[in-house]
């Protein structure tokens, strides 16, 4: 019963956060969006009128003609509902309703590889690539991290522990994207093994595309893993150090159970709840970090899309991508919360 209530509260909070995020995004870009939409209408109306020379000829003076054009523009703006400011409840409500149904409209400048300017299609094309790169990286990172962490956590003060800990501390202060630049310098300039730009040169319809994509993925993948696993190992190590001091581990040691068995069977099992929770969180966190990393490697995913959209102020894409990123982020926080509540009963009873 308590778990159900816990899940329900979390769900409501998450939905609230999603709405607030949307509202914030819209209010931040709203006034810009308004001007762009209105300019679009003006452009469209003028284009339609100049297409038909007979309209212009039917006016005696140019002032009258200008007045007519202005009227047409005002009418169009009114029918589209743009005469009301962007912060009017109806317009915000309508925009949010559309976005909730994943209707992001058309992009202003950017297109997908296949040439579509539908924001949903663009995002659907880019999202799998980001998931491919970052999820693979996170999984590799967590596997290396857990083993290394368990190993050094069980041998506090040993050489491997010292190396792991210092590597973790040092790597945590290096920006991933800078290491990315160094890796490009090293493996694309000094030793020309990997390409400097991670976008495959062949179209996505080509059968070799997947292979090419994987080859281009290697350099970013190595970089992300290299910078990431240290922090993981350190985290797992610290959990392990705590657990290895617990009485039940001590008693197992006295009972003569082999050390390996204690580490992997008993200690790691007890460290699992926080580890799983952090795994869920870092999966989503990696998506957020993708923006800069993808910009460095020119990886054709969500992060680069977001960055490109910001540079040219393509608002529908900015809103759409923010929404999708937030949804992913919230889902993983939600899962992390649930796991935490499931593993640790104190949380869900609110003590």
């Amino acid at each position, binding site marked *: 019963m308590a778990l159900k209530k816990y899940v329900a509260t979390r769900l409501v*909070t*998450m939905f*609230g*956060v999603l709405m*607030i*995020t949307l509202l*914030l*995004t819209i209010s*931040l*870009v709203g006034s*810009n969006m308004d001007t762009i939409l209105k300019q679009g209408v003006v452009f469209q109306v003028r284009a339609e009128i100049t297409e038909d020379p007979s309209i212009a000829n039917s006016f005696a003076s140019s002032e009258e003609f200008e007045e007519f054009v202005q009227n047409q523009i005002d009418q169009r703006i009114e029918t589209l509902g743009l005469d009301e400011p962007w912060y009017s409840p109806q317009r915000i409500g309508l925009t949010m309703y559309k976005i909730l149904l994943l209707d992001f409209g058309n992009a202003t400048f950017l297109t997908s590889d296949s040439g579509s300017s539908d924001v949903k299609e663009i995002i659907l094309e880019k999202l799998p690539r980001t998931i491919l790169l970052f999820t693979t990286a996170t999984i590799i990172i967590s596997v290396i991290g857990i083993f290394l962490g368990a190993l050094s956590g069980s041998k*506090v003060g040993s050489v491997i522990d010292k190396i792991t800990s210092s590597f973790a*501390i*040092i790597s*945590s*202060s*290096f*920006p991933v*994207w*800078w*290491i990315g*630049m*160094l890796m*490009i*310098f090293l493996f*694309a*300039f*000094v030793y020309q093994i990997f390409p*400097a730009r991670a976008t495959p040169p062949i179209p996505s319809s080509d059968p070799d595309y997947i292979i090419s994509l994987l080859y281009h993925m290697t350099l970013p993948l190595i970089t992300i893993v290299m910078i990431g696993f240290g922090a993981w190992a350190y985290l797992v190590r*610290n959990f392990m*150090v*705590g657990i290895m*001091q617990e009485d039940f581990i001590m008693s197992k040691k006295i009972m003569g159970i082999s050390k390996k068995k204690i580490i992997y069977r008993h200690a790691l099992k007890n460290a699992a709840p926080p580890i799983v929770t952090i795994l869920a969180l870092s999966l989503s966190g990696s998506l*957020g*970090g993708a*923006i*800069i990393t993808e*910009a*460095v490697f020119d990886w054709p995913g969500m992060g680069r899309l*977001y*960055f490109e959209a*910001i*540079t040219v*102020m393509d608002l529908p894409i*900015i809103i759409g*991508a*923010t929404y999708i*990123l*937030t949804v992913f*982020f*919230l889902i993983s*926080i939600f899962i992390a919360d649930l796991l935490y509540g499931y593993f640790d009963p104190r949380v869900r009873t609110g003590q």
Partner: protein
Amino acid sequence: MSSISPQEIKNEFTKSKMGIAGISILAILITISIVAIVTIPSETFSGWNNPGNWISYPKVAIPGWVNLFLIEKIPEHKILDEPIEKIETSGQISVISHQFGFNFDYDDFPNDFIYEFSAKYSGAPLLEIVVIRPDGVQLELLSTSLPNSKSETIHTERIFSTDESIRKKLVLQSNKFGFSLGKLSSEDIIFSQAENHQPLKGNYVYLINLYGVESQNEIPKSNLIIGGKAFGIMGTDELRRDLAVGLLWGTPLALFIGIVVAIASVTMGLIYGVYAGYKGKKTDEVLMRFNDVIYALPALPFLIILSVTISNSIFLMIGFLTIFGWVGVAKVSRSMALQIKTRGYIDAAEMMGQKKSKIIFRHILPQLLPYAFASIAISVPAAITTEAGLSFLGLGDPSFPTWGQILHDANVYGAASRGLWWWIMPPGMMIAITGLAFVFIGNALDVIINPKLRR
């Protein structure tokens, strides 16, 4: 956690190698900051993005110290601005001569040379440029008259080595060379050995003579630039900027951003969390829900949108970073406050009728100070790397060039795939070292506060 006195923390800290290392790095960084602020005028730094300021510097020049490790020396960029001045007058004719002497000891020809000057004269004086080479050969480069002016005027000009009349003059003197001058550029001719086309090492003298008739002429500004491929301690970038200036000035900026954001967000989180934990009940519930909302906002996309739509001013950026920085601290300090609340002396204080604000500030907050200091130290690198990341995306404040902005430019000009390591390595190293100093300090404190980690 709370049983450690400040004195004990200090003692433990001075024993920790990591803590000492962190403090030492920090001291070095602070020294660098002071040196930067004192020695480099702020105009140089605020003109970072103004190409006009860097016109006499070389393009993508490698750091000068690289020559120490090379057998074939790369020509260094020389900016000569202190000529030896001689003024002679004989009858009606007066001559001002500026002499630039320099040692050219490299195994490659210079890129170019530029003579920039401003002359104060009346009439139409004659400007003559002559080079005296180490082998005694004298080459005439130019003799031209400055634009005629009846009244006294100031004329500013840059004479480039690509000037066609210089080349023509040199070709006329081709009998001094044992090889065909062909299509060689003027600097390749001037700095070449007479017999074969190899760089000639030694002391060169550039002689600039200004002949005037019946007038008092002056050359108030006179610089000779010998364009090289190596420059200064840190080299230059594609836009000719001296990277040493950017790197030095980046230090106080990064420290300022990091420390201000860290202190602001930890203070905010601490007070927020303690207040929620101490008040409890409905207040706690509402405050923590709000905390959850901020926690669930994706920080980087929001920071990007904020800096694009509102402003990329560095001070606002510090505010934005703080908005996303206090959440974690608030959560932890709330749970700590919950623990402390149950202790006897808080009850006692309440029973004595002390004000709630006094209880929070007198009895609860001081207990959390060690944790607060550790969190400040740990938050600094995050703030610095986030700002660097935003700058890297091109969203930095253009009037304050940070390390992230240097890396942004490096990325835009493809420095990594062009092998311009001196443009990429130092800014990133500085970011990493600065972060490391605080990580060291934070970890050392953390070990003292959570003895479990030490065992």
